[in-house]
């Protein structure tokens, strides 16, 4: 008996030593740098006065009291917590080769909280409406999620979709144009899906049928759509009839608040006071997740994306599966694009997607090619992005241009693998040629 125990513990020791041999100091180093930043900025140069977080809006049924925090004191606490957690990360890496997950997540939460308190405390008004932060974030989150879902559909079947940006833009433009002409928002929505699908068709035709490099086709499509919509915007949308532009006046998709659910503080206004597109997004996230991991359709698609030869030898038509998925992905991204012109703002403007299609790709990777993961990643990016726009209005201690980098800096950190290794579908980006 005792020998068994000693072998086991020696095996554990070996495993431990092995982990130590390949330990990576990436996480503690980043945490240490951030902790130093926290100490200097949040604590030493922390603003005086209070930071107020408003949890409710006036029209809400249930009113929650405002959260008022002393800015400097909270900053000091947050900075100290960051230092302690960074230290723990160092000690853990030294002892067992990696940082525990709860330390990483606590660090992130504490740092973000400290950052918020510092920046809100530093503005003139010293307050922020959290509901506004989240509802505003949905303006970014919705198209991001549609874009990411498009990416999920394509990459799970083995095609890299760099053209999400172009599909969003095509959807936005077409929705505005068709919506204006027909006066029907749903016609615009449908047209947007078709436009996205057409861009998807080009991607599929060139990359699957003619085996052109998928990345290059995608990039070219983005440039093509940007050019085309820009041109048509100038030539069609600026036509004035009786002094008014009639082709860029799309109707709005109405908001449909869900009774009861929409009254839940913060969550209600964020998720349950949306247009039909917002609900469609939630349904698609759940639906695509379920379809991918629970149905025959999903099993075949994942097989095609992981090991196309295996799928082929089991009688599955690899390239047809991919083609259909890229078309579906295109349509989904097109619908996402419609959000820009039918919900967010009521007219099309040149390049209005502003690179969100690429952030959607990042959300896809951050979310590990999983619809739910991508949704959560998009939420994170959305909040960061909206924080930037809210704070650009207020006078903040840092330059607005600097804050504008925030979501992108976050994206790079996320994609660089600070969140752990993510594994792409094995055959993603590799064309399938029989034989």
């Amino acid at each position: 008996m005792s020998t068994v125990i000693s072998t086991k513990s020696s095996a554990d020791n070996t495993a431990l030593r092995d982990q130590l041999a390949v330990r990576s100091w990436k996480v503690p180093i980043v945490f240490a740098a951030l902790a130093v930043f926290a100490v200097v900025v949040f604590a030493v140069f922390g603003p005086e006065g209070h930071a107020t977080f408003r949890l409710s809006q006036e029209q809400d049924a249930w009113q929650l009291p405002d959260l008022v925090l002393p800015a400097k004191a909270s900053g000091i606490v947050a900075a100290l917590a960051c230092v302690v957690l960074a230290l723990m990360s160092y000690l853990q890496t030294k002892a067992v080769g990696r940082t525990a997950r709860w330390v990483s997540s606590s660090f992130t939460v504490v740092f973000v909280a400290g950052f918020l308190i510092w920046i809100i405390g530093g503005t003139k008004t010293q307050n922020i409406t959290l509901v506004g932060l989240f509802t505003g974030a949905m303006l970014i989150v919705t198209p991001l999620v549609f874009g990411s879902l498009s990416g999920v559909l394509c990459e799970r079947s083995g095609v890299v979709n760099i053209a999400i940006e172009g599909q969003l833009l095509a959807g936005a433009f077409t929705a505005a144009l068709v919506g204006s002409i027909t006066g029907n928002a749903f016609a615009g929505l449908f047209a947007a899906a078709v436009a996205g699908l057409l861009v998807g068709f080009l991607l599929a035709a060139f990359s699957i049928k003619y085996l052109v490099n998928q990345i290059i086709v995608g990039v070219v499509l983005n440039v093509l759509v940007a050019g085309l919509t820009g041109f048509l915007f100038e030539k069609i949308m600026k036509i004035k009839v009786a002094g008014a532009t009639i082709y860029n006046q799309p109707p709005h998709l109405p908001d449909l608040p869900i009774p009861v659910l929409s009254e839940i503080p913060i969550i209600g206004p964020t998720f349950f006071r949306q247009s039909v597109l917002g609900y469609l997004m939630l349904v698609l996230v759940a639906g695509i997740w379920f379809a991918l991991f629970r149905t025959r359709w999903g099993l075949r698609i994942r097989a095609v994306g992981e090991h196309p030869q295996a799928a082929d030898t089991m009688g599955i038509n690899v390239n047809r599966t991919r083609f259909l998925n890229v078309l579906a992905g295109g349509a989904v991204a097109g619908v996402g694009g419609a959000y820009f012109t039918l919900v967010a703002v009521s007219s099309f403007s040149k390049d209005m997607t502003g690179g969100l299609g690429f952030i959607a790709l990042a959300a896809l990777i951050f979310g590990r090619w999983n619809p739910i993961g991508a949704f959560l990643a998009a939420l994170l990016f959305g909040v960061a992005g909206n924080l930037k726009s809210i704070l650009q209005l207020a006078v903040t201690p840092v330059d607005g241009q600097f804050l504008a980098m925030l979501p992108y800096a976050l994206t790079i950190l996320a994609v660089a693998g600070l969140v752990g290794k993510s594994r792409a579908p094995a055959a993603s980006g590799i064309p399938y040629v029989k034989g």
Partner: protein
Amino acid sequence: MEWRERRRCGASCLCPLPVSGINFRLVETLKLELKGITKSFGSLVANDHIDLVVEPGEIHSLLGENGAGKSTLMNVLYGLYEPTSGEILVDGKPVRFAGPGDAMAAGIGMVHQHFMLVPVFTVAENVALGRESTGFAGILDLEQTRTKIREISAEYGFNVDPDAVVEDLPVGVQQRVEIIKALVRDAHVLILDEPTAVLTPQETDELMNIMRQLKAGGTSIVFISHKLREVKAISDRITVIRRGKVVGSAEPSASTTDLASMMVGRSVSLSLDKAPAQPGAEIFRVRNLTVMSDVGTRLLDDVSFSVATGEILAVAGVQGNGQTELTEAVLGLHKHVRGSVTLDGHELVGRSVRQVLDAGVGFVPEDRTADGLVGSFSIAENLVLDLYGKKEFSRGSMMNRSAIAEHAARKVEEFDVRTPSARAAADTLSGGNQQKVVLARELSRPLKLFIASQPTRGVDVGSIEFLHKRIVAERDKGTPVIIVSTELDEVLELADRIAVLYAGRLMGIVPGKSSRDLLGLMMAGLTAEEATVQLSTIPTSEGEPS
């Protein structure tokens, strides 16, 4: 008790196996004929008017060298390639297979050399793929598949868990999953493409038992191989293919030499004339060498051995048991290495690849097209890949083209590289000639250690002879030689001593003339002592064909 139904009785007496109760699998038998199958890729004719008849319930071997066109033929039969001309007949009726789906529907199943399994899927998901049973709205229902896997698994003693994830399974078990896949699809003809390449000798014996069981149940098997011993052991009939053509058929009783000369097209000497080794000082020492993956698993675990001047140490083992890491660690190609490797007293761990090469190490990598050659470079350029910076081949920062050309002409002659010109791109050469170029380059420097990984993989028999002779010649010059090979035949042919790796650990070092059974047990994870004990208690002849 049920009896298997058969439409036709095979030539050899097949006593139907009794099977119990519900496990009964109705096996029909079918006769398969290929008539005048030709398949060309551009100007290359891979199959040239091939005729082949597979009788019901027989094990029919397709024997041929690498690149003879065996796999192409089977891919045609399985519907993966469309034949350029010729026809396939099933039970006398011509059929056309537009894809593997048609072939499967006709009762043909195939186990590919490189498994067609999705690594991240479970066994059940892999087996179900393509013919999934579903409930409401296409929701997967794997229960039937699981039951079926358990049934087949019990029937043939496969011991496969339907819910295991494929990438976690050993290759031998993955192969069984492939067989289950075919059986679930009611395959009456099973094509096994080089199935033993990834197996230990014992696993090979087990596979052969499975093949006999399948045959007894009425399934015909097409067994593709280039290993004469296995083909002789298992076949009812043998068809030999050379350069895309059927060159004849043979009975399993035919002699190995006859089969070999049919396969190669001329008489070959299968045994190498090799003088006994004259080991000198042990100048190459490996001490406690451990190699780790990026996530901290041990790819090579505390390995120690020495090699003396003038001897060949062969490293045997099933593919993927640490051989690659061993050579990479010595060459300085691996990141996480602990322990010590000394050559002539100089430490090699922690040195750059250039320093290791300059210390006198010659290295033939296992994948010559990926790591051994630059395919688009000429033979002459490939011959100086590691020497171009040396004085004799350069003028300042320019290449000395005439010196390189002269060097190439000499080496092409010396190593019998069959090419119209040394200016030809390396990827225009056959596998054997490519390997000669790699060997010529590595042996053209004065060496203190020579390592060759899979020196004859995918190489024609004629070139194998030549390559083996050069390796032995290097030994006789007094260089310590390490051969890494997964081919036991090659190991036994070349080795003065044999080291066996299993799961990154050294199972022991045994003399070059050790038995296959001993090596097989070591390759399956027994130490040399344990394997010896086991062999002395259990009679060893059970793997032989009756």
